[in-house]
């Protein structure tokens, strides 16, 4: 089945709802067409095309809920899926946390997530991009491993109280790692866009090539506390865990870094340097995201950290009702304010420090302090008197984003990036941080 237009999706969901006998009913449909190509050892390895669609019916009688789905769309199948959801609801135990479905919402205009040029990407375009990337690798006597994936996706949601929402989006994701023949140097870059016009495999690969060549002959520095400059691809993997930890229920229940003794939280308190401002905005032209979330709530522009103060937490609809507050949904992506300072100028202004391209294998160590561990990877360099002096061996760190954002020295110009750990997108600046804790050395290149 092709990607459904808003009108086609609306007609289909309306038909499904017309079969419902439940007290409350929600119907959703989503689908995608995606293609990818993967390369390694300077040659293509695997590639593919995947097409999927799914329709879900959620039927409630009182607080008893049943859910069923189907991927056939003839009338008989649609009737069957509604009946199945209703049968399941009758069999289900009462869910004390069930919250009655939303009425119609006043959504703002959709953000520009869908770009027709991205939607029309062909296998040839992907192969051509890989061809260019491989040429850069071969010209520099490096070995490339990379990945290109593009997709078109849509989702639509309708319920028996008259709510309807539709969204469609496109995406292109690229990453490449270049390694020297003797495996003594490695460089990386990743990019993710809605609009294919920003996708330049050749230019991106050249940046990774420079890092690979520049990282040959890395010297070992003693582990310890260092001033670091985290490029956006490195910073996002720590910041996403801070933003991902802003769940109100965890905080209220006393099991979060935001919890205080006696059931209180740090909401409204200054926890970070006053230059830290983090928010989400579905209509940001560089990082558009969906204008409604999975349960139909509108996604609004929302401040999470303002001048270092925890400004808002996000809630499930049940927890918001219980706490008698607005049910703010969690963000799909986040934006951190920066300055006009380029990465080059941040480096120039650094007496002694370490430039970090990428952080890897990030895992929680202590949820109470939001302590995380992980390692540097694919381009780590020593800076002295404003210049990159030499590559350094990779480090393991043990650091909390809370401590890190209290040790902020300077911010650079924000750039759209994507987490290599989760795929979450962010628009975030390079960050210069003092006293970042490197606890051991790694021999990995």
């Amino acid at each position: 089945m092709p990607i459904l237009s808003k009108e086609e999706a609306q007609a289909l969901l309306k038909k499904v709802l017309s079969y419902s006998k439940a007290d409350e009913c929600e119907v959703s449909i989503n689908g995608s067409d995606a293609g990818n190509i993967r390369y390694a050892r300077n040659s293509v390895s695997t590639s593919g095309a995947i097409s999927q669609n799914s329709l879900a019916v959620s039927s409630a009688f009182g607080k008893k809920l049943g859910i069923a789905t189907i991927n056939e769309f003839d009338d008989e199948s649609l009737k069957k899926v509604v009946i199945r959801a209703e049968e399941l609801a009758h069999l289900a135990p009462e869910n004390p946390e069930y919250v009655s479905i939303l009425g119609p919402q006043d959504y703002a205009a959709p953000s520009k997530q869908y770009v027709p040029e991205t939607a029309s990407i062909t296998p040839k375009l992907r192969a051509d991009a890989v061809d260019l990337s491989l040429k850069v690798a071969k010209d520099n006597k490096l070995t490339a491993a990379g990945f290109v994936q593009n997709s078109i996706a849509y989702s639509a949601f309708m319920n028996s109280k008259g709510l309807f929402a539709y969204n469609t989006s496109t995406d292109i994701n690229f990453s490449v790692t270049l390694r020297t023949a003797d495996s003594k140097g490695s460089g990386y870059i990743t990019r993710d866009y809605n609009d294919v016009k920003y996708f330049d495999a050749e230019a991106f690969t050249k940046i990774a090539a420079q890092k690979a060549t520049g990282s040959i002959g890395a010297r070992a520095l003693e582990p310890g506390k260092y001033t670091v400059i985290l490029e956006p691809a490195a910073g996002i993997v720590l910041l996403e865990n801070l933003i991902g930890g802003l769940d109100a229920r965890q905080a209220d229940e006393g099991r979060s870094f935001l919890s205080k003794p006696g059931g209180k939280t740090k909401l409204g308190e200054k926890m970070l340097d006053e230059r830290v401002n983090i928010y989400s905005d579905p209509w940001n032209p560089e990082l558009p995201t969906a204008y409604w979330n999975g349960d139909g709530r509108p996604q609004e522009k929302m401040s999470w950290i303002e001048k270092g103060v925890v400004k808002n937490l996000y809630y499930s609809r049940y927890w918001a009702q219980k706490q008698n507050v607005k049910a703010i949904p969690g963000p799909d992506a986040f934006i951190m304010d920066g300055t006009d300072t380029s990465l080059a100028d941040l480096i120039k202004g650094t007496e002694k420090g370490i430039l970090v391209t990428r952080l890897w294998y990030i895992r929680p160590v202590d949820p109470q302090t939001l302590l995380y561990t992980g390692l540097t990877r694919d381009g780590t360099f020593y800076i002295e008197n404003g210049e990159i002096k030499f590559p350094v061996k990779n480090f393991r760190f043990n650091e909390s984003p809370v401590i890190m954002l209290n040790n902020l020295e300077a911010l650079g110009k924000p750039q759209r990036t994507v987490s290599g750990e989760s795929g979450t997108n962010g628009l975030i600046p390079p960050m210069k941080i003092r006293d970042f804790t490197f606890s051991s050395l790694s021999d990995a290149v």
Partner: protein
Amino acid sequence: MKRRNFLYLTGMGVGATFLQGVPAFGKIIDPSAALDGVDPAFKKQLSDVALNAARSKGATYTDVRIGRYLNQFVVTREDKVENIVNTESYGLGIRVIANGCWGFAATDKMDKDSIARAAADAVAIAKENARLQSEPVQLAPQKGYGEVSWKAPIEKNAFEVPIKEKVDLLLSVNDAAMKGGASYVDSILFFVNEQKYFASTDGSYIDQDIHRIWPLFTITKIDAKTGKFETRNSLSAPRGMGYEYIIPRESDKIKGGPTTLYRDRYDMLEDAKAGAIQVGEKLTAKSVEAGKYDLVLDPSHLWLTIHESTGHPTELDRVLGYEANFAGTSFLTLDKWESKKFNYGSKLVNIVGDKTQPGSLGAVGYDDEGVACKKWDIIKDGILVNYQAIRDQAHIIGLNESQGCCYADNWANVQFQRMPNVSLQPGKTPLAPSELIKNVEKGIYILGDGSFSIDQQRYNFQFSGQLFYEIKEGKIAGMLKDVAYQSNTQEFWNSCTAICDERDYRLGGSFFDGKGQPEQVSAVSHGSATTRFNGVNVINTERKI
């Protein structure tokens, strides 16, 4: 399904709502529908459509996988059932070689036209990409098996057990934890059934039925005065078993240590009672003094260290550079294997790859490219002797046939090299954990898995756990907290000085081993007996914010 999707669906991840954009991994279905298999004769017909269509478009090799992937979760917290979810994912993936290059396409539309179209797409992609290839794909020879089948040897199909029985078990677990002083408890039963059909132009038509189970809980206790909190996770293992895994059996319990441990049957209720007490002890435990300790690692902990530091670096695709952009490469380069002298660990260290071990997560009859499964040495008397390979890699390490390590987590994803069960063999001389501990002067006994992180070539790692006990002069001296150990893989395995015997051998494992782009998960078990490592660097993880 990715680990993060699981955390989202179960609501167990902090920041779960952050993941609302992640597509669900399958359709949600009526529990009763999970019991209906698809007739192999029908799957053969569909497969032949794909094989013929690909051949007619110019494919020189084709394989087809028809998969029906069923999951069931029962999710509870305290006295509430939060979620009961049944999902199904059904579709077909076609992999071809055309012009010497791989191509792949997948569809969930199971009519003949859609299947033929997907086959044509796969061939078109292969032909388009062939210009980017440095040398044609070389497949190790593989005989066709004809029409065969394999079923996991389970005793009780978990999908046939009524939901009420599952809910009652979890609520009794939660009740025990709360009565034991917990502030919160989350518990989950997770069941998987993969109904997989494989057909190839080699002449195989293979029907397989695979089952997995994972019972788990997290108990949280908060000190109201200080606001400090601690958690204790279940000491269960995910297993390639049916519902019988969670029917307790006394003969599968190991008693006498600080907590009861479990072999092939798990007592969730008993573990929750112990966990509720231990989480309180963790709140008042002594914070560890950083330094060198001899570590005594229980199999409920050691499985993860084996997984990260032995399983991953011996994956041949990493060694060759296929994962350089994501999961990483490996320090166990081909020259180390060719030398037949690379000292990976002490002479006590014997590690095998095994896709046949009953009750393990990796056990199947045939892998996802139609190769019958087997067992082989990877580390022999401390020396690196082999890797984990699939058909298009076998020639690189001089093998005449694949080791059967090919797997895809779904019909929609292309199969590639994945880890078999990789297990440390038990010691050959009789040794019980209590006897092992008796000889340790300054050590830490670690049970359960916790935080884990390792570099992209698998040298430097850091692990934590669930329970830590200080060992002083051969005796357990009390509980510790804030413990993590850091080491280098080769140094660590060479510091192995004692391994308990087979009576103590148990399996741990992971449901969510991640690799590949797009990322795929794989389930894998790791066996070991309690093992001692001398002089390992322990750090203190306490911080103030």
